[in-house]
């Protein structure tokens, strides 16, 4: 099997790490070779963060080169736009519609680009926007935005729902398991 490459991009503190670990655990249980590269340290303080997950028969580099991500899971609009060059032709961009202003925008040095979703669509990208925050609140916690997004992502993989659920059980601390399962189901049901 050709390797599957998934990138998760967002703002430090949004819970991108947990999302990548769920995918990683899913791939491991399915018997694939897996590598993922995470961000720890400075960028976790509200900077632009990216994690890479690759799985398949044999994975060498943990990093995904430009133009080679099958799926980008974006937690924030500007970050989706920033990392777009990494998406494969015919790749999928799953995108939380939340916007978080970066400091240069907050202090008025730069503008937050307008109509990002449309602009991305105009580049002929298969983009799937979702207001994940709304569903996270519905599930019962703002913190489950990441798992709502994983739910939506799961629909576009050839891995069955049960395997994803197992990976969530393996990754999420047990006291938060219930809300996260609800969040996953909401994302998956979209």
């Amino acid at each position, binding site marked *: 099997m050709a390797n599957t490459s998934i990138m998760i991009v967002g*703002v*430090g*503190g949004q819970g991108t790490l947990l999302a990548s*670990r769920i995918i*990683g*655990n899913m791939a*491991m249980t399915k018997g694939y*070779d*897996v*590598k*993922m*590269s*995470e*961000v*720890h*340290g*400075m*960028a*976790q*303080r*509200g*900077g*632009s963060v990216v994690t890479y997950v690759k799985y398949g028969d044999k*994975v*060498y*580099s*943990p*990093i995904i*080169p*430009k*133009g*080679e991500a099958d799926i980008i899971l974006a937690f924030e609009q*500007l*970050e989706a*736009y*920033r990392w*777009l*060059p990494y*998406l494969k032709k015919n790749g999928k961009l799953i995108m939380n519609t*939340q916007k*978080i*202003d*970066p*400091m*240069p*925008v*907050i*202090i*008025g*040095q*730069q*503008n*937050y*680009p307008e109509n990002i979703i449309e602009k991305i669509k105009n*580049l002929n*990208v298969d983009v799937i926007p979702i207001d994940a*925050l709304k569903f996270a*609140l519905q599930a019962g*916690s*703002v913190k489950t935005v990441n798992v709502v997004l994983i739910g939506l992502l799961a629909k576009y993989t050839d891995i069955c729902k049960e395997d994803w659920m197992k990976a969530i059980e393996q990754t999420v601390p047990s006291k938060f398991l219930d809300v996260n399962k609800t969040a996953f189901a909401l994302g998956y049901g979209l």
Partner: protein
Amino acid sequence: MRKLMLGNEAIARGAYEAGVTVVSSYPGTPSTEITEAIAKYSEIYSEWAPNEKVAVEVAIGASIGGARAMSAMKHVGLNVAADPLFTCSYTGVNGGLVFVVADDPGMHSSQNEQDSRHYAKAAKILMLEPSDSQEAKDFTIKAYELSEKFDTPVIIRLSTRISHSQSLVEISDRQNVPLKEYQKDFQKYVMMPAMGRKRHVIVEERMKALQRYAENCELNKIEWGDRKIGIITSGIAYQYAKEALGDVSYLKLGMVYPLPEKLITEFVSQVDKAYIIEELDPVLEEHCKKLGCNVIGKDLLPITGELSTEIIKEKILGIKAENVLKPIENIPIRPPVMCPGCPHRGVYYVLKKLKIVVSGDIGCYTLGALPPLESMDTCVCMGASVSGALGMEKARGKEFGKKLVAVIGDSTFMHSGVTGLIDIVYNKGNSTVIILDNSITGMTGHQDNPTTGFTIKGEPTKQVDLVKLSQAIGVERVQIVDPFDLEKFEKVVKEEVEAEEPSVIISQRPCALLKHVKFDGPLTINQEKCTGCKMCMRLGCPAISNKEGKIEIDMTLCNGCGLCLKVCKFSAIEKAGDLNG
């Protein structure tokens, strides 16, 4: 059983399986999770030391005492520990002794991009470099075997992409390694000139033995493929090369010091064209060239930053990524920021207002150098804020000293700020030192330190009293202030910089991300009262933004710390309803 593990967790697992019993480290990205993971094994004594020099010395002591010992640090940590490092190369070991050092090509979280391999050569110490998590574990176990066999400390070199990438690791049981007997041996362990001279001869003999070992050890491997291209590489660069070039020939070096000679010359002679693929400095390349091998390295590949599959494809095969999708406009950068509720924000708000020169240091508070707070003038290395302030004052005189403060975090002060403060007092400086005591080592992800009152295992312990410590050094003007009490903080800073003697201001308020820190929940802006004066925006809080002239607070980011309430002159900021309903 196979598990997904970070390179750092795999090093910890390796230490566990190798029967290590003592680990002392100081945190530093990208090395921190090694010691955090080790702390979870109850069979291993582990600790956060105040700095890397202390940590390495604890490990050396443990090794001489007969235990298998480890110390892990980031690349610049090895600079701090360089003194014991060079001399323990002479003493050798009793129990196996391993230092793990994590480089940061691309400077994801560091102040420089130094290449630690130079230390192996300079200190004449064996160095291994794994290329994934499995090797990180295997090489750690091997390192202990080699350390004891060759009577040498061993350095394991990692880089960010090894430390912070997860891959599959086959785990095994812990070996039972009994404590070695301790025998007094001053010829080996007391490094005075007479003994040192003899030990140096032994070190040189050891180098020769290691050199022979490098020629046919299983750590250095040839993978034959198409012989038109031969690649000599190590670490993460090997993975990039494999992905970019596929089935060519590889000499993958797991032992990067000392380097083999015959193995390299033979490999190079059997391929049409040989390339050296290594991140940062041309260490392998210079070695190959010294051997007279015709190899291509840094003439083609960059010396700065990280390598990647793309760079290798482009430079060696001439293949560029095509038709890459591109945004049609400039994307604003997103630098890291101080979190909502960060206690450091109050400090910089005041320092900026007072237009004070700030001799800075390293930690979350370094983010105060960026707009809009922009109130840090220097940042060199840990501790340099305090000593640097004295230097500035001595260079520019007393009056300049009245517009100058040093700022330093609690962990950084323990690491190497105390000695600078002693210098200020001893040499009659007048500097004002602000210790940013947020009750934790923040930047590296919440490690305890001597000022927090807890050990790495979360056990209560004695807590360094910063007031008494400063007083004991001879500072008479010492006080504790809450940085969110902006008025008082401003008043205190003004008074202390004026004072013609050293002062210490302890800015005390816990990190907003600590579990026990609770605020009242998100705030919102009452648009009827808001005049759009933008005072609140000067705080550089990521939760406050300007949406086409309307100032708004993002309820998903705001925690209700209330600092903005204090700068709003129109009482336009109020408590919001609960987001979770």
